[in-house]
């Protein structure tokens, strides 16, 4: 199937394929991560691979970059069959990789990072001079300007990523693999990245783009391959498909990409934050002077590039992190640095928290689902109040109820939490927190690592909570998610609020600018406060 689509598109061009994978199989224990995977990538194109978490994308890329060796199947690069036993083999074959999490030494300069591993002999100075010369031609050719003498830690994320790309090109990569490259970028940085990819493509570089964002696939790729549960579902020409079709292929059934936003009537303020500031023990100010309020029956979205204080904000509101100055008021209770509230007190004030990191916080992975489903509610009335005994039967029954009303599959309370898929794990957390019928709901990254089918369900649940009068604070790095769910959006940059805007009065461009630190001081922002 692959060859048909690809060869039709290529016409009679008979130059060898940049990447040709045939019948790749890879098994981990009893899990088959890749099943007879075939992939043909035409040189000088941008080829996307989409699939849900656990579909086998990462395994496939790891095989291509020499981290794993396939159990069976063949890999050919530019027509030459190769055996990739290590990343050194992959680099030698002309493959470069830009990881989702950058592999850079923060306190080294750009140049030092680029030559790391290719120092060119024992004389570092001479090697660096040589590298500088050849880098100059690379940067000119691909339009990748970056200050070689700047320390990487001082560069914005977008530029750090550019350093990663440069590093790969400097090592002679003709094929570039990008793994979820836009997860840490603002919309503007994403556009810049796509421009760079366009230039690279024009210069004949082949690009393999791994992503779960269908919009990006549509925006930059020439071809797209869809994976589902370890198998290639189809290979398509991007121009001849659409997000709806891709989503359906990824999930295996029709899905609703947008559950449909309807404006709601907000009521009285449920939580007021005034001049909230948090200084870490290291002296770093993670939150500075944040003020906002959230009302009954509204969703306040907190947008921002990951790591700009959103996580700290959630933890402060949930009582996990201590306030340095400022106040959080819930009902009559004023939480301050002098009178802090513990997570259990905040819970008693009617707040529930779906944490960002469900693996480290929301669930205890080795616990059974039944055990995870009472985390933080061990002393709730339904678990027998202050009684010191925890009845397995009561836990199982409670979990079963939650599972059936939130459609958790498999509905098996005795199964360990880590054996559920991301979406089902998130449903367990959501079920536990929502069933406490909170007045205020904190939600962090509700759909991170969650399959598309479950996203639809989770979004509907959040709307349902809002419509029941709950005040919802939603933190997400997926700007699309913020835009489709929130009534108002607060944008954060470096621990500061860049302003609060009504969703109806803004667009993704303005929010993107605010995420980058530009305070768009339009009058309508003031109105939204």
């Amino acid at each position, binding site marked *: 199937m692959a060859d048909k689509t690809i060869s039709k598109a290529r016409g009679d061009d008979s130059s060898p394929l940049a990447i040709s994978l045939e019948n790749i199989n890879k098994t981990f*224990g009893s899990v088959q991560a890749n099943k007879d995977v075939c992939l043909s990538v035409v040189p000088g194109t941008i080829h996307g691979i989409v699939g849900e978490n656990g579909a086998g994308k990462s395994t496939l890329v790891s095989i291509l970059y020499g981290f794993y060796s396939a159990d069976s199947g063949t890999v050919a690069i530019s027509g030459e069959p190769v055996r990739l036993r290590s990343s050194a083999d992959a680099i030698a074959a002309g493959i470069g990789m830009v990881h989702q999490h950058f592999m850079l030494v923060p306190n080294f300069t750009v140049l030092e990072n680029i030559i790391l591993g290719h120092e060119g002999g024992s004389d570092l100075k001479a090697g660096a001079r040589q590298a500088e010369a050849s880098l100059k031609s690379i940067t000119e050719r691909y339009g990748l300007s970056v200050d070689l003498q700047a320390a990487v830690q001082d560069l914005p994320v977008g530029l750090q990523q550019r350093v990663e790309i440069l590093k790969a090109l400097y090592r002679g990569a003709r094929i570039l693999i990008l793994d979820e490259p836009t997860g840490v970028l603002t919309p503007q940085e994403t556009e810049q990245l796509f421009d760079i990819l366009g230039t690279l493509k024009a210069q004949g570089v082949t690009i393999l783009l791994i992503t779960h964002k269908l919009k990006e696939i549509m925006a930059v790729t020439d071809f797209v391959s869809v994976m589902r549960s370890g198998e290639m579902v189809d290979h398509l020409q991007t121009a001849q498909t659409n997000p709806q079709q891709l989503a359906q292929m990824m999930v295996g059934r029709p899905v609703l990409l947008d559950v449909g936003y309807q404006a709601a009537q907000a009521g009285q303020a449920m939580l007021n934050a005034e001049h909230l500031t948090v200084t870490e023990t290291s002296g770093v100010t993670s939150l500075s002077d944040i003020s906002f309020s959230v009302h009954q029956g509204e969703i306040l979205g907190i947008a921002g590039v990951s790591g700009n204080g959103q996580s700290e904000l959630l933890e402060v509101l949930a009582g996990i992190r201590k306030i340095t100055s400022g106040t959080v008021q819930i009902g009559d209770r004023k939480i301050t640095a002098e009178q802090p509230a513990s*997570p*259990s007190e905040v819970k008693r004030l009617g707040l529930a928290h779906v*944490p960002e990191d469900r693996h480290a916080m929301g669930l*205890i992975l080795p616990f059974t689902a039944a055990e995870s489903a009472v*985390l933080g509610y*061990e002393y709730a009335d339904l678990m027998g109040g202050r009684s*010191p005994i*925890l009845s397995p039967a009561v836990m199982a029954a409670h979990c079963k109820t939650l599972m059936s009303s939130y459609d958790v599959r498999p509905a098996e309370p005795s199964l*360990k939490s880590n054996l559920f898929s991301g979406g089902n794990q998130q449903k367990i957390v959501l079920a536990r927190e929502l069933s406490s019928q909170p007045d205020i709901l904190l939600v962090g990254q509700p759909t991170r690592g969650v399959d598309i089918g479950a996203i639809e369900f989770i979004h509907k649940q959040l709307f349902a909570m809002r419509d029941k009068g709950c005040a919802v604070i939603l933190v997400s790095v997926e700007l699309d998610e913020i835009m489709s769910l929130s009534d108002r959006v607060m944008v954060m940059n470096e621990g500061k609020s860049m302003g609060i805007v009504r969703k109806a009065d803004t667009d993704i461009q303005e929010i993107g600018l605010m995420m980058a630190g530009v305070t768009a001081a339009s009058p309508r922002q003031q109105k939204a406060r």
Partner: protein
Amino acid sequence: MNASSLPRWIDIGLLPVLNLIAALTVAGVIIAIIGENPFVAMGVMIKGAFVYDGALGYTLFYTTNFIFTGLAVAVAFHAMLFNIGGEGQAMIGGLGVGLVVLFLDSVLPPLLVVMLAVPAAAAFGAVWGVIPGWLQARRGSHIVITTIMFNFIASSIMVWLLAGMLMAPGQMSPETRSFADGINLPLVYEVLQMAGFSVSRSPLNLSFVIALLACFGVWYLIWRTKLGYIIRATGHSERATIYAGHDPAKIIMLVMAISGALAGMMSLNEILGVQQRVILNFTSGYGFTGIAVALMGRNHPIGIVLASLLFGALYQGGAELDFEFQTITREMVLMIQGLIILFSGALAYLFMPAVVRIYSSLRKPTGSG
């Protein structure tokens, strides 16, 4: 794939048995090298541990020590704390027993003294466990380092006291005076003889029953109470515990107190059961062996009872081996014990990758078809 994807019977049953077989095989080879028949030696060991007159009583006596120290390690391990300090906690527990008895045995009736000495063993052990717990929880000092240090401190304190203040007058050896008559835990053979059974003499005493009750208590605490749930949660994810509204620091200190109390109660068996005075080094490494016991017993009370029984049999049967064969010396017996500790402790998961491979290859045909 990891241990959690294996069925429980393989993890807690098959793997320890494989480790044991491996250790015995290596020991057997060494015994063959020095010119003895390993099978005959094995027979002597089994008879020495279970069959000979009074053998079983001695085996269960040692078993009691291992149950206490094994449980101590296991409880701490459920909060992911590696308590290496069982040895020191047991010493200090013994000190607690000694102090209570030496101060009170001339004032109070024996039964009352014994009833006070039992909680004293637990309380003193608990204190010796809770200090490293506090250092870990509030000061970030690693529990492994501090508990090792506390073993040395405990040992020094014992030498200082037993060779000084507490040393029996007119004595040359570092030990206290003997306790007053009647201050001991009832011996099992005496109780059984009173009930009309003819049982041969052994040091097995009421501590064995206390140990079994402690097993049940630990099981109930860990798997049936909210506190146990929170202890396990702390062990798996401190962040999740904070999120759930609990203070991991408090849990760590509490768990170390429980762990120290269990280790401290080991002294009941030795001090209040047999010696009837505090002697130096009465713990003789049981605290350390407890680590191997807990590992082999997979931190479950039932596993710990079985592993303790094995080590008890090794101690008792090993002594018999030393007695019967001229070539097999005490050091040789220690080596066999060492091999078992090595294979079931340090190399506990040696065979797991192979077992996982075999298991998943056996399962695949039925799984897919």
